[in-house]
């Protein structure tokens, strides 16, 4: 299977040759151009007239994280080894192809209260329906992600595009209880745009289907009992509520995601503006196993209505706007993104809902680049994210509310430049500030385990300001006429701005450390 994927990527990455366009952007030249690459994936037809040089980039990288200050359902440390190859290929003036293949091998240490492949490193809460045990354990994860895209100028102002995406993830916990989680996520999206002069209107729609199967094994299943609270498998149904889950040995999720939207783009030789509005609804169904149907201790799981137990619905309204000014000496990019996300659950056995999550997120990323030919004289990035989050469990009974602001500021400059070599240095700071928060809890159940060990701890984390420096160093070497080598490394640290977390949780007071390094070849 994986060899097939590599063949496809090789075709996408290497099989296409075309002349480079005049005044075109070579994405690997600077980090900020990768943001434009991400925008192309979002709506390829909006960028079909933008000039991007062909490139193929192949990268090997490693990421090391030491997370002393974290939410509970996250690893204390992790190591990631990755391989990535991606590229843009202008087959002709009319046809552009995009391709990407990603592989990561991730080891995590000491993940507690979590038997899923979701983590709360970058999200306030996990989805509501999941198994957990207090006992911490190490995990191994392997992720594969392949995607392809196309934009094609069909006729007059009419342009069509499509993207396809496949992700596969295998996760294993390495001590009892030992879930083996297999995830396959397929999605596709089609785009159509009509260009009139400098203006373009586009519409798009997509479908996705994600299947996750959980097979929970144990060397010693007999310790799975309330008498051994560290190992007893429990099921979270909301945010604080714990229920029994007879299918804990084998169960599965299927998520169907439907989305559609529309976009507008304007461009002239120096300016580009685009905006996209989209709506998506992801419906996740949780399926038990046949043991419950046939009076057996265990059974097999599959996606049948008779095994359906719970649902979780995520609705996302998203608006994304970009402005890009480009000239011979300077580039300026600004992105504003607003998402309004609502998640709510449903229990088939109880015919009702007890959990709702809302997240309104306004983010902006602003990049400025002063150039001298290919030399970066000065680059600056200012990013800000405003989150307005709430989670409520009517049976938990928990109400959590957080508004927060993330601010990141970075500067970069080519500190050494030659035709065949250059060194780019990046320095900056990242920060998190809670603006308003509250956590209310009224126990309706005698079981307060999730509140005592997860919800309370996480809220202490969310209500604490954090600040830290970040540094990046990138060395570019011309290897041949069409091939460059990049060696990069980044380091960041995040410090708490108060001792509250240390005083109210088991936090050891040390900062979080992030390090990554890698080598990439682009041609």
């Amino acid at each position, binding site marked *: 299977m994986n060899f097939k994927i590599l063949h496809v990527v090789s075709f996408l990455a290497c099989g296409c040759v075309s002349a480079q366009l005049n005044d075109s952007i070579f994405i690997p030249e600077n980090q900020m151009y990768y943001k434009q690459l991400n925008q192309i994936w979002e709506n390829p037809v909006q960028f079909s007239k933008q000039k991007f040089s062909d490139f193929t980039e192949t990268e090997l990288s490693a990421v090391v994280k030491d997370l002393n200050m974290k939410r509970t359902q996250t690893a204390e440390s992790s190591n990631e080894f990755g391989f990535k190859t991606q590229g843009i290929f202008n087959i002709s003036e009319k046809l552009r192809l995009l391709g990407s293949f990603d592989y990561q091998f991730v080891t995590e240490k000491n993940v507690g209260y979590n038997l899923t492949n979701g983590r709360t490193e970058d999200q306030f809460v996990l989805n509501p329906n999941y198994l957990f045990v207090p006992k911490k354990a190490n995990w191994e994860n392997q992720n594969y992600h392949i995607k392809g895209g196309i934009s094609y100028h069909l006729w007059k102002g009419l342009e069509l595009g499509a993207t396809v995406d496949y992700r596969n993830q295998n996760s294993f916990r390495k001590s009892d209880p030992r879930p083996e989680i297999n995830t396959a996520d397929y999605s596709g999206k089609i785009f159509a745009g*009509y260009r009139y002069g400098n203006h373009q209107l586009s519409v798009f729609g997509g479908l996705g289907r994600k299947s996750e199967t959980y097979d929970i094994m144990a060397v010693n299943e*007999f310790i799975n*009992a*309330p008498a051994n609270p560290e190992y007893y498998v429990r*099921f979270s149904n909301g945010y604080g509520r714990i229920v029994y889950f*007879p299918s804990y040995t084998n169960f599965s999720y299927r998520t169907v995601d439907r989305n559609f939207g529309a976009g507008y783009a304007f461009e002239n030789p120096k300016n580009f503006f685009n905006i996209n509005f989209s*709506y998506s609804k992801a419906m996740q169904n949780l399926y038990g196993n046949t043991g419950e*149907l046939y009076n057996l201790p265990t059974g097999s799981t599959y996606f049948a209505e008779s095994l359906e137990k719970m649902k979780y619905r995520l609705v996302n309204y998203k608006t994304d706007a970009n402005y890009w000014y480009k000239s011979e000496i300077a580039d300026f990019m600004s992105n504003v993104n607003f998402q309004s996300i609502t998640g709510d659950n449903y229990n088939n056995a109880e015919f009702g809902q007890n959990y709702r999550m809302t997240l309104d997120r306004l983010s902006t990323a602003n990049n400025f680049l002063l150039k001298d030919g290919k030399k970066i004289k000065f680059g600056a990035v200012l990013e800000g994210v405003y989150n307005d989050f709430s989670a409520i469990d*009517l049976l938990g009974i928990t109400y959590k509310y957080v508004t927060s602001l993330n601010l990141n500021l970075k500067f970069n400059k080519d500190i050494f430049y030659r035709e065949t070599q250059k060194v780019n240095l990046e320095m900056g700071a990242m920060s998190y500030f809670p603006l308003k928060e509250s956590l209310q809890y009224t126990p309706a159940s005698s079981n307060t385990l999730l509140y005592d060990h997860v919800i309370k701890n996480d809220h202490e984390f969310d209500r604490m300001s954090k600040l830290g420096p970040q540094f990046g160093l990138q060395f570019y070497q011309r290897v041949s006429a069409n091939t460059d080598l990049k060696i990069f490394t980044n380091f960041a640290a995040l410090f708490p701005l108060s001792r509250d977390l240390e005083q109210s949780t088991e936090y050891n007071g040390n900062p979080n450390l992030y390090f990554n390094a890698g080598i990439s070849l682009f041609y």
Partner: protein
Amino acid sequence: MKQLLTYFAVLMLLFSCHDDDFGNNSNTLQPTNFKVEVKYDASYNDTSGNARRVKNATVVMVNNSSGDTYTISTDADGFANFSNVIPGTYKITVSKKMLSDEFYATFNYVSPAAELSFNGTQEGATINVNVQSTVIEVRSARIGDLLIKQIYYGGSHITQGAGIRDQFIELYNNSNEVIYADGLYLGQLYGKTNTTVNSYTQSSGQFDWSKSMGMTMGNTANTDFVYADYVMRIPGTGTQYPILPGQSLVIAQNSLNHKSPLVDNTGSPINILNPSLTIDLSGSDFEVYLGTFNNSIGEAIYKFDIQNPAVKDLEIAYWGRPGNWSGNNDFIMDSPGRDSFIIFKMDPADFTLLSDYSDPSVTNATVSTRYFKQIPINVIIDGVDLQHYNPNSQRPKMLNASVDASFIAGDQAYISQAVIRKTKTTIPAQGNTQARKVLEDTNNSANDFIRQTANPRGFQQ
């Protein structure tokens, strides 16, 4: 262009959302109030024929989905008013202990015993904003002098101890008179092992036996009978096996000293790495040896069904329908706890006449169909519902409230742990009569039993 716009309009309609994602029954689940009215059964009606309500009874409600437990007592009018109850499906248990003077004050006649217990249960009780009350009737618990005292079903460590080979059941004479065990039946009951409700179950998730093939008696098949896959009988002529007051009778799966090395029926040695984890059952009163029976039906003898010729075997009274034998080739108790046990007495001829039925999930009888002996509840002397140690794997009750109002579960399997009756009191020695312990017997196993290390003929520590 117009065609294109039409096409995209249709596409957007296809992707648009529906408001009925969660069906028409969707509602917001919130805690609610709930009222339980507790009445005595009709045999205790007042002179006008009206039911009497039960004051100061303990009402326990356990949520089937989460185990959340609410306990309060009924007020002077016989109502238990719960507030802030999480909606869901509940098992409600009512228990009431009554001394003879309260009995007289309540019913105006003399109590048949110094202390009586009344129990009532309701399984599958729905609680939500639309259903905020229920009525439960309590019945006087069966007063039995012969009790199931200890059940050691969990076994000992699989590699260090004896696994399930050292299982046993202990019976106890809780009275002040000699009881003869001759002809006593021991039944291992059959039922659903999960609480899933479907077309062939009752609302509790237990089999609806009225739907078994050939069953014609309606709901009394569920209320007046239990169903056993294995039944054994103590031999004897009537006075061969006396149990003295305060004495026990131990029935072992294998009546052996499990602390010592053994040789199984294939000649292979069995080594016990940690003898302290298991027990010496060589002094048990009876063992269940299936070898003779298995030979008689053409089945192989189980390699761990090792006979001790010095100990009397129980008789095999029922092991399935001939040709459709039940699956176990030894007396094996479910180590996680999905079993119920009863002791009962009846004439062997009457026992033979009892019908057997397949469970109601079976719609076509085949050679592999299993059958279960239908045993009337009114012959049961004592019974205990066990429960899986893992609440994720809980099962519905098999016994009704007059036999066992609740259930008892171990901490986990293979930890040398048994469930044993609490000691209620010790009656001191008088003259030639030895001191004896009186064990708790309210026919409510959650109240009557505790968990502790298995100890044949031992008592609550």
